[in-house]
């Protein structure tokens, strides 16, 4: 069992767990992920690593309640345990001194982009971060991201906080102003797709972190395969970071919908058995 050392409810439906996993903490780097399984009947799902503390032997993950597994996860409290916590998996994000890097986070991916922005800043990059959410009540870690960015732009879809609109709008303006050497965009697939489409005409290298369905997370099953630059790649071992201009986004989006019917059925069962019932 991997104990939950700390639970924070960040915003509606988004939670943070700090989990005791010394082996994973010892190796974690920005951009990597873990596979978790709650209990004997649970599925294996990937969660991106948001932070780690090697001394304490802990790893921080942030997740949003979407389907059965994430709802079940959200029911857990400090002191509870998770059956399996495996990682760090995938390749770390390539960090170097690129010059000026724009980090774009959609929704709760601000937690994913934070350690990447921090690593980029430590390498001497000028980091401009853009974080976007649907509305003000879904904004978290603004201060944290600001602390590792030279500039921070916040957008909300409804204009309730920061700038009204999507993250792609300030991104486009920054590109038009020039001097951007690299873009890292992380969030829902559709947001990454449009971020990559925004940067493409400017020819600025754009790294995205893909989030397909996975099972083992170690290159064994091929469930997470995507098409990048016309070649089939496994996100779990070849990624999760890829060049956003080469990703076949429609294929990724279609494959993410593989189990929509089953996810619905599973969630109905979960609700009807009164949450964490048998």
């Amino acid at each position: 069992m991997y104990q939950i050392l700390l639970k924070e409810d960040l915003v509606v439906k988004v939670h943070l767990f700090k989990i005791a996993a010394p082996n994973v903490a010892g190796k974690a780097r920005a951009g990597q992920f873990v596979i978790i399984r709650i209990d004997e009947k649970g599925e294996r799902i990937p969660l991106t690593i948001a932070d780690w503390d090697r001394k304490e032997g802990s790893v921080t993950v942030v997740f949003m309640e979407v389907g059965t597994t994430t709802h079940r996860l959200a029911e857990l409290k400090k002191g509870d345990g998770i059956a399996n916590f495996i990682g760090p998996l995938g390749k770390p994000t390539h960090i170097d001194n690129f010059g000026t890097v724009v980090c774009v986070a959609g929704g709760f991916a601000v937690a994913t982009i934070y350690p990447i922005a921090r690593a980029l800043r430590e390498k001497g990059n000028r980091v401009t971060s853009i974080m976007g959410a649907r509305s003000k009540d879904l904004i978290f870690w603004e201060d944290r991201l600001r602390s590792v960015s030279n500039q921070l732009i916040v957008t909300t879809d409804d204009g309730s906080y920061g700038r009204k609109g999507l993250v792609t709008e300030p991104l486009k303006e920054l590109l038009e102003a020039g001097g951007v050497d690299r873009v890292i965009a992380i969030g829902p697939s559709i947001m990454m797709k449009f971020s990559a489409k925004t940067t493409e005409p400017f020819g600025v290298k754009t790294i995205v972190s893909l989030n397909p369905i996975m099972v083992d997370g170690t290159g064994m099953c091929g469930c997470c395969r995507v098409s990048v630059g016309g070649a089939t790649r496994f996100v779990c071992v070849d990624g999760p970071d890829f060049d956003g201009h080469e990703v076949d986004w429609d294929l990724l989006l279609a494959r993410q919908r593989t189990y929509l019917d089953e996810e619905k059925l599973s969630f109905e069962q979960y609700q009807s058995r009164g949450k964490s019932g048998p």
Partner: protein
Amino acid sequence: MAKINLNREPMPRQDPKLRVKNFNEVALGYSAEQAKAEASRCIQCPKRSCVEGCPVDIDIPDFIRAIRDDDMPEAVRILKSKNSLPGICGRVCPQETQCEVKCALDKKGAPIAIGRLERYVADWERANMGPAGSKVAPPKPTGHKVAVVGSGPAGLTAAADLAKMGHSVTLFEALHVAGGVLMYGIPEFRLPKAIVKAEVDYVASLGVDIMLDVVVGKTMSVDELLGNGYRAIFLGPGAGAPMFLNIPGENLNGVYSANEFLTRVNLMKAYQFPQYDTPVKVGQRVGVVGGGNVAMDAARCALRLGAEEVYIVYRRSEVEMPARREEVENAKEEGIQFRLLTNPKQFIGSDQNWVAGMECYQMELGEPDASGRRRPIAIPGSEFILKVDVAIAALGTRPNPIIPATTEGLETSRWGTIIADEVTGKTVKPAVWAGGDIVTGAATVISAMGAGKRAALDIDKSLRG
């Protein structure tokens, strides 16, 4: 001496009509009477050729004699002294090409059913001697720490043997349960998971410390293990990476690797979805591409999950099929349809990115190729569409690249296998041995066990210097 009895005791099996609706074991195992009758057929010939056919050197005539003489504890002792996983081997070893083919009675068409007797002894032990079974006297500790990476057949065998030799063994497994392919690959109806668990528990009872959830190469590297006091490392991570056909449409929804399909069903228990959280798509018409045991396993799982039509699509003819005869027969009995001399050209998709069919060529056999089997050649203009809503690629596996890619000083072949001494398993990297599918490419459970056994001997020799 009594007249030679050529009436091989048949294996009782579940009725095909019933078994296609459940995941219970197909082969039911011998009764005590059947086991004794079969054991009594062994003529105890002095040549003992069967032992030569066994990669782990089981004293086959001796345990068979013990069954005949009603001395089951002795049969268990003899079997377990060479094989720590007899319940598994008795079920999944291809005895017909190993020990049984060497049997003196094979020429008369009725070799002793060694595999079935092995299974009988293992099952008897589990039922009558408790979970830890026949405990061996604890060996004198050597004080040497040895790491074994991967808890499949090679790793379990190496770990058990090294522990019996007195070494302090830690077994690292990437998945959340031990057993490797025995857990994620081979289905419940062919190898019940309770049997695997019991035999893993036996290995643990020898003092092996099993560490789950550790992906060596990611969570810790081989060199870190060496730095942490492990004097020797055996690498047995298997050949876990699936191969695809590399044809158009392969990434459509509903196209699985056999590894994924079987992992969802066996390891994650998708056959009990939604009680278990992991789903699997089965569909009405399932096309399984390939002709090995894994293809048979995937096809038979799909049938049990409710598919109406299940096809084995194989590019050669039945004679060339690498699957065990017995599994092909089981599949046929259950109603799997064999589309032989057939090879997919592409997968056809629906507008929703779902697989809707497989465009296939009819094939003919040409001259023998490097494998010695006749090369399949597509007949021009023979294309036809096989309607399927799920397709499974069971084309074999490659070594998982994680360990070779993260370990300095190992030599790999162009197929990604680790190069190691054929007999001892020693790699060119000091203190590192390797064996099983990571060295040979995808092969059998028993050959991996043989490699684990030989490496354990060599590690022991090297540690005792």
